[in-house]
């Protein structure tokens, strides 16, 4: 049976509690925003399939509890994830400070080549802002991670963030594949040969056939 997607990426949303991880996820998967969400307990995930350069990429995005004490469960889910979104709240200084700790967490628990991205959420609340954009950018530069400010409420940059992350993951995967596969020319030739074998030896009949 044909699969409905070409590849599956597992992503993770992490960050302090109350920064807006569930809202971001909801915005991305259902394109909706609800101010009265309940706090995430345990773990949950949502799926959305996007089209990336012609391929159907199924994103399986896991949403975790923010409070650090649940980490015993979430650490198990770092493994196998290909991309991680680190989320902080621009109106909460502390959540920004903790990004460093979350990054260290990732280094300890996730695979080494996992793609990361920092999101500064709730950027629509300018009057309550505590963390400037420059600081966010600077942090990202320090860690060499991409950075974008988002607003789940206003649907700002959420799609962009996920698409970018997915694209980065895909590019990385393809680079890996290319490195491990023989160079392209040969694979093309392989294909040719295979299809040749399938074809029945052409007889004089075939040349005359009308198709």
């Amino acid at each position: 049976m044909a699969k409905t997607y070409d590849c599956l990426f597992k992503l993770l949303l992490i960050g302090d509690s109350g920064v807006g991880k569930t809202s971001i996820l909801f915005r991305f998967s259902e394109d909706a925003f609800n101010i009265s969400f309940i706090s995430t307990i345990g773990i949950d995930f949502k799926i959305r399939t996007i089209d990336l350069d012609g391929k159907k990429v199924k994103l399986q995005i896991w949403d975790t509890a923010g409070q650090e004490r649940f980490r015993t469960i979430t650490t198990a889910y770092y493994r196998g994830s290909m991309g991680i979104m680190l989320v902080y709240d621009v109106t909460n200084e502390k959540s920004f400070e903790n990004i460093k700790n979350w990054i260290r967490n990732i280094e300890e628990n996730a695979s080494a080549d996992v793609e990361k991205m920092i999101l500064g959420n709730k950027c629509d609340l300018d009057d309550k802002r505590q963390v400037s954009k420059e600081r966010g950018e600077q942090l990202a530069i320090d860690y060499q991670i991409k950075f974008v400010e988002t607003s789940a409420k206003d649907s700002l940059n959420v799609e962009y963030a996920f698409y970018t992350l997915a694209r980065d993951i895909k590019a990385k995967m393809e680079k890996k594949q290319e490195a491990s596969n023989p160079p392209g020319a040969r694979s093309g030739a392989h294909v040719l040969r295979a299809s040749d074998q399938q074809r029945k030896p052409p007889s004089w009949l075939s040349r005359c056939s009308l198709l």
Partner: protein
Amino acid sequence: MAAENKVESEADEMPAAAAADPSAEQKERLIAAVKKEVKQLMEEAVTRKFVHEESGGVTALCGAVEACLGQGLRRRALGLFKTSSTTALLHKIAKHCPEAALVSARVLSAEGAPATRSASGVERRPSAPRPPLNKRGSGSLLSQTPTQSRYLWIRIALFERQLAKIIEHLVNNATRYYERDALVADPDYGSILSSLLVGPCALEYSKAKAPACFWSDPPADELVQRHRMSAGTTTPPSVRRPILNFRRSLNASSDDTSGSSAGSATVSSAKDYVESLHQNSRATLLYGKNNVRVQPKDVEEPMPGYLSLHQTAAGLVIKWTPNQLMNGYAESEGVDKSVYWAMSLQVCVWEVVYVHVHRARASDALILVGQDGVQRPPIHFPKGGHLLSFLSNLETGLLPHGQLDPPLWSQRGTGKVFGRGKSRRRPMPSLCESGETEETEWEDVAGDYVFRIVNNAIADREAMRHSLLERAVQSPPRTPRRPLASTSTTSSDSSTMSVDCPPSAIINGQPPLTPAQIPPIEQAASIELVCSTMRRQIISRAFYGWLAYCRHLSTVRTHLSGLVHPNIVPTDGTESGLTEEIWQSMMDENGAVHNGDEVYRLVYYGGVQQNIRRDVWPYLLGYYEFGSTSEQRSEQDAACRRQYETTMSEWLCVEAIVKQRDREATAASIARLTEAAGRATSSTVETGEVFEDDCSVISDNPPIVSPEPSEREQKPESKPVLSRAPSIDEVENIEMDSEEKGRNDSKVNGETDGTSDSKEHVDVDSLNDIDDDEVYIKSVVENPDMRRESIAEIKRLAEGIVQKGDGRGLLCSVDSGNMTLNGNDLKSSMEESQPPQQKHASVIITNPSVDLAASGSPASSGTTANVSPARSPLGVVREESHSAGASFDTLEPSGDARPDNRSNCVSPASSNGGVYSNELVETFALNLHRIEKDVQRCDRNYPFFTDENLDKLRNIMCTYVWEHLDTGYMQGMCDLAAPLLVTMREEAAAHALFSRLMLRAKDNFPTGQAMDAHFADMRSLIQILDCELYELMHAHGDYTHFYFCYRWFLLDFKRELLYQDVFAAWELIWAARHVASEHMVLFIALALLETYRDVILANSMDFTDIIKFFNEMAERHDASAVLSLARDLVLQVQTLIENK
């Protein structure tokens, strides 16, 4: 021989020819695939109202159809070379078939301009890849074809509703395009294929831009719906699967037990049965024949029906179904079919020992004789080699575990028993006398034959144990069961008398003896052998079964005995649960309820009526005791309320401080933001494990100390405690050193003290530079009398704190500089206690005013205004700020005695100041923020939670957390408290109940160990009670973490059920502790799993699937069914244990 046999059977007109034929099997598979896809597509259409054109189901169906059409296609002859020959085929038949022409035209127009690309030399399908892919260049071909254009013509035909007709056309003209043995050419399959596609062609397809979910995995609702559609009547799992199930897992018994149980299994549902007649994943159809007549009991004439032979995991099964039950039998509806069900046959071949064949002129008959000697009613085959075919299928199906004895056609190439056809095959010698070998003639031959069904596995075992083993060496090796009936007519007696050779002889594989060689004595001995063998078999089977059962039970007892109470409590009279009348009747004149057990019993089985919940819940949670009078209870309530208010007032002060700090922090960060050059923020130390919320705030802010306003002159001398606030490092150091410090009494005395004026001045200034915070020192020092008392007070406090042992609020107020003290004793103690510079701690003595100026008023006894919890704390602050500052004299709590050091501060209900350490404030601040974040998000959709009630919830949480600052607040606590508040309505009561609830629930949080224990218990329970589900979980590996149950156990199912159901569930859990099981949560979880087990198994769910499923099913469960199933499961385990 084998090949010929197959070719022969090919020529039969039976759709399900011998399984040995690969192309037939392939055709079976292809058709089965199409059937499956059609089924799924139809289900999708029903549940979603329409089918999206790009959905996976459509693609899959197209793939299956393409495969069918491609099989056996005469490509070479037709010159169809390209990979999508079917498209070429379509174009070809377009000339003859108008529908095909239509589709063909559409396909060509949809393809755009493929012609140029084919020049690249790489073979491409006519259905061209879309333009974006061109950028890729040559590359790999197949992976780039987007799904949309795969099977393009089939898709288009489907959407245009022409597909069925096109296929019909193909079928009708199959000979032109297809090989003789192709699926399409097959008269049955071909028409099946075209009729199958009529359904999908009639569906609505939509190109609507649907959200991605339309082509993604079906949500939980849909899965359940689909399951309901296909399952017919669902029997409750506990009924359907008796305890006997577990035998399979232990597997100590032989195959036969499973075989016999399969044979005796009753038909669970009509639909299942009929479906099982067809090929499916569990059973391969080896043989099927219509119009086979059987004369069941109480029927005069043989009835026609469908005979089929199925190969399942358990073995071969022969089934016969009356025509009336078959699909498509034209009969009026409403006829009761159950009588026909009774007539249907289902026989497991391993149960059959002998197969008697009677060939008469009119028909061939088959009689199956079971191991118990019972004969089944004869099965009449129509003439024409059908019986033969059936037997040969049976024989092949029996391999490799068994065989027919004698084999239908022996290995030596002597031909079949019945002999047929070709000249080079010769029948067994014994038959030569009676029958000719020509095909025509053997049909006329009447004759009876007996075959024995040999199970090699059993035979092996028997051979080992057989006492005649040594005899086998000498005894004549193989006695063919001669077809006795070659001379006699049918007589079941004579056939049972047929001689069987000892099993050992078969294994030795010696050549058969002619019948003449069998000595009569041998015959008698062999019969005896057979009997004793049977006896042994029966005994051994019984023994193994019993052994397995015993082993299982001991496992059960080990694992599960701890999970349930041994006594089973009766259910009589509990249908309506605990109603108001019953409740009232149980109360005596003093309002005391004595019969606790009865209450628990009623609640366990029937729940509590809504309007008495408020009264009953405190009993269930153990807050009220059974037997307490109303007076006692109201006293208890009053005390509780007082306690609550006291505690509240304590933390309210701290909250005020926290709020103040927050405001400052916000101001500071905004200031930071707006400054051109950002201030260097004091870097937060990387603490690793501790992500404290407000550390940065704290690090910037020195502790707040309220003025000691008793003397006016103190004011100018109010000194800062510290020059700077401790950073997190320091706090940690404080923690570490607190113990040692505390022990030193003299150190205790060295409390907050002054520094020189100048220092103070400097400090104040510096502090003012840093923040707008005011830092005060409690310059108790100035007033000797006050000092003494206050010192004493502080000392008492500090000791109290120290005794608590966690080092909070330690007094060591050493400043960085030199300290000059005013008091001698203080001085000395201060000098002694000169801790290193960085170990600063402070005692914060607060008056919840932060206003320097206002502290002046003399030390009147502080207001003893009772702070009512409901008022906003800030209001309190403001009031207090004008009051006289607290002196320690006034630190008597009004109302209750001082709370027993639950919190580390003395605070009167007046909240008129207290001693708060910095650390305390920090911790509480951290928790406060967490609480606020969570309370705001708690149950927002539930109308009860207005802002006012949310405030109440917040207060409850804060109070609890204040009392348990070491564990603090963890996400989930709000969810546990909310239903209590809803029921009790009153804060203090809800708080009391919440504390009781948390006694048990606390361990479920990450700080405790209970969650792991729950998971382990779940694993054991499932392993024992539902091994099929367990195997599925095991197959998927990480399932066994059971993390999908995490939220269930943490919140006692609060998020999984609607509010009303939550109440019922909680009552069940609480009551169960006394009645049936202290682990009721496990059984409820198990009940949830069992309710959906069919969906889980059918979709072979792995870990992510099951999480998604249950998250989506949240608040959609049929709670009463789940809860009663949970009770049943408890009963089941109790019975298991009880019955030993």
